């Protein structure tokens, strides 16, 4: 415990985040596990003691049993597959568009100034506002989900790419120019490496947002996937089933977080400032 305190206290002035500094004490993990067990225990007790009606909040053991049952069902994995497909496609489209536009807009100060007001105006528009439009255009198909996911994820990535491209070191850029590097070569060897950490932050944020919107589209519009299963389970009175699916979405969320951090670490392992990421 005390060594942890010294480590975090000593590095704080530098603005570093030293949580992942290597030698963590197992006590911390142990406490975390105790916390999860404690939470599940409380959840188990609340309906058992009748504080909340068991019909509305089944005990944890029942829900976990229902989740284990789901894991053996093909239909469950089909739904997970549908959700993940929409998530991945939407995210991929958004990232591709945002990177393309971000590099184009970012490399010209005229375009940056001219688009700033439009970007700042379109960005805060909640993507759920597009739900009625998506229903009208695509009905309950996957395209509805894709439209919402792409819209929401696009801005997260675009803003980061714009910051990243603006962050290019002028000296490095001019040096590259002096050495006769062409436009493409400069994008590849000067701008891209500078913008990559920002891009990865954007992609990580967008991945979370994309999952939220994927589930939302399924829940509200009824396009196929876990969200629709939750809505169906709720209206069908399969209460433990519904809670099990909610837990499943949480697990997917955790997995996506872990995956994204892993990818970020791998792609930026060469970069000196891996730890000083931008907080958005």
């Amino acid at each position, binding site marked *: 415990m005390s060594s942890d305190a010294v480590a975090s206290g000593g590095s704080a002035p530098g603005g570093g985040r030293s949580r992942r500094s290597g030698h963590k004490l197992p006590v911390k993990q142990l406490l975390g596990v105790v916390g999860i067990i404690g939470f599940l225990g409380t959840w188990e007790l609340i309906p058992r003691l009748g504080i909340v009606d068991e019909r509305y909040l089944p005990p944890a053991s029942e829900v976990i049993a229902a989740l284990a049952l789901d894991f053996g069902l093909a239909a469950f994995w089909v739904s997970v597959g549908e959700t993940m497909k929409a998530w991945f496609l939407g995210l991929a489209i958004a990232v591709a568009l945002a990177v393309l536009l971000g590099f184009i807009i970012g490399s010209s100060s005229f375009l940056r100034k001219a688009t700033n007001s439009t970007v700042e105006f379109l960005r805060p528009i909640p993507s759920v506002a597009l739900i009625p439009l998506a229903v009208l255009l695509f009905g309950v198909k996957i395209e509805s989900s894709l439209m919402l996911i792409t819209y929401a994820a696009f801005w997260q990535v675009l803003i980061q790419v714009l910051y990243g491209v603006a962050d290019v070191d002028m000296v490095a850029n001019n040096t590259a120019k002096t050495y006769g590097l062409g436009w493409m070569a400069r994008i590849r060897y000067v701008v891209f490496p500078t913008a990559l950490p920002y891009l990865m932050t954007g992609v990580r944020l967008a991945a979370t947002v994309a999952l939220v919107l994927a589930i939302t589209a399924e829940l*509200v519009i009824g396009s196929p996937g876990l969200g629709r299963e939750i809505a169906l389970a709720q209206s069908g009175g399969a209460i433990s089933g519904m809670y099990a699916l909610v837990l499943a979405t949480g697990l997917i969320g955790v997995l996506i977080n872990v995956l994204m951090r892993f990818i970020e670490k791998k792609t930026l392992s060469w970069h000196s400032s891996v730890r000083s990421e931008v907080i958005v």
Partner: protein
Amino acid sequence: MKVLKTAAYVLALPVLLVLAWWVSTLGTVNFFVPTPAALVNKFGEVWFGPRFFSDVLPSIARLLIGVVAAIVIGVVGGVLIGSVKWLRALLEPTLEFFRAIPPPVLVPVLILLMGITDSMKIAVIISGCVWPVLLNTIEGVRAVDGVLSDSAHTYGIDGWARVRYLVLPSASPQILAGVRQSLSLGLILMVISEMFASSSGLGFTIVQFQRSFAIPEMWSGIVVLGLLGVAMSFIFQWAERNILRWYHGQKEVENAA
């Protein structure tokens, strides 16, 4: 001259876009896309009547109550959990899991627990918005400058004064980063909670227009949500500039050095 130039930069693209929209709807009748004039007409007609009081204001009120409650709970809980080491270790994995659950799935859960009521909708907003604020506050409190913390301790600054003058200010950049996330989340949850199960509110009205194929009305609703999002973003930026003036100043000095 400079003012004119800035104005041109700000206005040129939006004006061009609206012009393009106007030209593309000229002469043709597209069922899905209304003309700008029709949209503006409907906008005033639909939203500045009795609907303003029956749907718009209650929605905004629920949103505000939910977001403010989430911020208060998040900051108080975050300061508490962030300052006690063992408590943080105990709760962090569980909280991370809760944050990873996509908030919209809480809508059916809370409908089950609370019924379709106003307090359900507020609870949905709180239960979705609290996590970014809570976890960012914990992180911010944890990263309080060690030297400052020790100095405060040496001067005998403890308890409430320590929270007020040391912990909250140094965590405020992170707290506000969390607040920004929860503001946009709150708007999304407000709309979803009304779309999913409700008989009033912005989200319900817009879906109702869509179901009855009242296309210009539906678009005007989308515009209202958009304006709401933009307004919230501007208010937040204004508040952030004021609260974090010292922080941005400090950053500038650090960057210049």
